[in-house]
Every structure is written in C-alpha cells, then in structure tokens.
C-alpha cells in the first residue's frame, strides 16, 4: 500500500466521525485516524482504560507516566476530559453511550462477523476490550487493508478464525473501497481514487453487491 493510499484510507475513516459522537479508536490503524480528525470537530474520544476526552499523543518529556491509552501510547486529555474506573468505562461501551468504534480486523465477513483477536496456535493474547467494543458500540466500522500481507482477502464469505462478535460490523473501510453490511448483503458503496470495481471484486472473497450507476470515490 502506498503512503498516499494509506493516507486516503485514514482520511476516509476519519470522515466516519461525526459531530457530537463518543468514539473509541481500536489499536493499530484506527489509532492513526486521530491525526486526520479536524481540530475543531466536537467529539469525545474514549479509551477503555478509563478516559473520556483523549487528546493528542505525547512523547518524551511531555509524557505523563499515569496517562496512557488502551494501546499503551502516552496521550494527553482535552479540556473537559474525565477519568473513570474500568467498570464505568465499559458501562459507557455496553450501556449504549459509545456512538462509534473503529476496529482493525484479521477477517471480516459479508454478514458483519468480525474476527480480530485470536489466531489459534499463533496469536492468543486475550481479547482485551475488543469483544465489548465490537458487540456494543452503536456503530462499528472496520478499518483494514483489503488484503493481508500474503495478499489474501480479509473480506471473507465467512470468517474462519474465532469470532470477536457475530454480525456486529456496519461498514468496512479499506485502502480499496468502502463496503456496507446490509440486510441484502455486503454492498460496495465507495471506491478509492483510481481503483476500479473489477479490482475490488478481484480482491474480495466475500460476495459483493455492486450498485448500478456511478460509485463515489474517496
């Protein structure tokens, strides 16, 4: 993936964040979306280790030893931030107060199934907060490269890995396209600039519904 494709994907993901939302950015690619959120957007970033109102990353001498996000990065807070314990933090998630989460994926299926926490025999670190984020955020947007490093499509007919949560994903944003999980199936809704429908279809294992007419680009 080129640097410009990566930036385009991150910018497109940032556009998922709407004014007034409480948002949790998962570890990995989603965290990088932060740099593309407009400075003046009214939004509250949540971190599951007990922060509402996460601000920009802090490095070196500016870091506070007691202030990390759930990914372990030293962060700051914005004015009006608050801290809470881990039970209250997940009450925000499970209680319906988290409007959006952006999550990474190992695999995501056309029916919205998500696998992003375990690769049996290879990667078994525990789920952390992923299960609750995936299952309970009001809106779940997966942000991932369309293919894994070996070129295998991450957008699958069915997930083969153990699920994080079934039927939880609303939208998938990749370096190639935006796809929405609908009652009819997975729908191609946007194309990355310079990418063709045929390229996306070739890169996607899941069945993909291509709407008639022009498809918007990002």
């Amino acid at each position, binding site marked *: 993936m080129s640097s410009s494709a990566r930036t385009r994907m991150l910018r497109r993901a940032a556009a998922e964040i709407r*004014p007034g939302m409480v948002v949790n950015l998962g570890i990995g690619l989603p965290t990088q979306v932060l740099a593309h959120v407009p400075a003046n957007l009214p939004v509250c970033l949540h971190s599951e280790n007990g922060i509402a109102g996460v601000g920009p990353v802090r490095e070196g001498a500016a870091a506070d030893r007691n202030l990390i996000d759930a990914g372990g990065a030293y962060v700051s807070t*914005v004015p*009006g931030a608050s801290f809470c314990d881990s039970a209250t933090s997940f009450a925000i998630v499970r209680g319906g107060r988290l409007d959006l989460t952006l999550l990474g994926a190992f695999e995501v299926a056309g029916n919205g199934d998500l696998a992003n926490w375990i690769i049996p025999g290879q990667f078994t670190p525990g789920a952390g907060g992923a299960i609750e984020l995936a299952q309970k955020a009001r809106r779940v947007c997966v942000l991932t490269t369309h293919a894994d490093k070996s070129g295998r499509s991450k957008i699958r007919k069915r997930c083969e890995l153990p699920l994080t949560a079934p039927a939880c994903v609303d939208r998938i944003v990749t370096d190639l396209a935006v796809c929405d999980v609908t009652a009819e199936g997975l729908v191609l809704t946007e194309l990355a600039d310079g990418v063709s429908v045929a390229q996306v279809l070739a890169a996607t294992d899941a069945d993909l519904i291509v709407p008639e007419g022009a498809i918007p680009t990002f």
Partner: protein
Amino acid sequence: MRLPDKTATMEAAIAAIPDGATIMLGGFGVPGTPFCLIRELVRQGQKDLTIIKNDANETGMGVDWLLEAGQVARLIASHIGLNSRAVRMMNAGEIEVEFAAQGILAERIRCAGSGLLGFVTDIGLGTRMARGKTEVTVEGRTGLLETALFADFALVHADRADHFGNLCYAAAARNFNPLIAMAARRTIAEVETVLPLGALAPEEVHTPGPFVDQVIALPELPEVYGVVQR
C-alpha cells in the same frame, strides 16, 4: 477536537418527555432531588408516568407534586414512609407501587446503565421480597435473579457541571444520581453551577460526560432545596 456542548433549556428538555414515559429521579430525601425539573414536568403535565426514585420525598415537595397532580401511574422505590399521600394513594389503589431493597434498587439501575441484563443476589431470600423472583444457582449458592431497571429519561441534580455534561455532586446529594445518569435513554441534568470546559479536574468528575445528554443551568435555587425546618 473539542468536547460537544450540551447546554439546553429546561422547557425544551422536559418537553421531549411523552405521556407514559418511565422517568428516574435522583435524590435521597431532599439532597440530590431535581426539584426544578420536576416542577417543569408538573407545569407541562405529562400523564401516566412511571417514576423510579429511592423515596417519594415528603408531602409538599418533589415527587409529591407529581402525585398531587395525578401524573403518576406507577412508582418504583425503596421507602415512601415520609410521604403520607404516596402511602394513601398506594393503599387506595390510585398508584401502583413496587418496592425494592434500597441497595438492590441502586444495583438494578446500575445494571441497566452498565449494559447488563440482570444479576443474582441472596438479598431477600427467606423473606417476602423473594416472591415471584426466579432462583438461580451460582457455583452451588442459590440466589434471586434481579433484572436491570431502565428508564426513558433520567432527571439528575448536580452541584457543578461543565458544558460537556461532566457532573459533580455535593456531599450526600450524590446518592442515586450517578446511577440513574447511566441507565436512561436520555439523561437531563439540572446544575447549580455550570463551568467552562476544563474547570473541573478530570479526576474529580463523578459522572463522566458521555452519560449526560443535556445540561441545564439553574438560574436560582427555590426554597425547597434548603434545610427542611420541622
């Protein structure tokens, strides 16, 4: 990024409440009771309400205004002994009253606010509080299944808040307020002092802003908030 502004007017906030709504009210006795929001609810006159509150206040204040106006169909509480009208209306069948042990009421509200379905407790076993409840065995111990208690609206009274809805409560006025703030589809907070973002230290916030939908600054405190002279 900056945090959203949730300040609102009392009239508009209460106007969103329809007839038949389930409403949680903060407060244990006078401290923490949202008297101004209740007064506005009486003025607007929504009917057939289910009220969830620790107590029914005393005669002549708070919940009693709603009872007097005939707006309450059902009351879920732990103790209503200081309100003789509530007791009389219950005994006359004019309102339906459901009692819960005080800490179980608190916990059922928090359970809803935490996105859980219910919990299992041995509180009430061997008493009439167990009637009609499902028994569940947990690792060999028997308990009663208590269900999460949700509301459409939570009306909260806070001492201090910021525009994002971070709330701080004074002394024993905290009580049920942080719990009901979590458990409603919409949480409306009346606040004695509304401060700019950043004026509350992040460590001192009692109810984090994400739980709160609307913040209403109280222009003045009516006498009912004061020390009760008996």
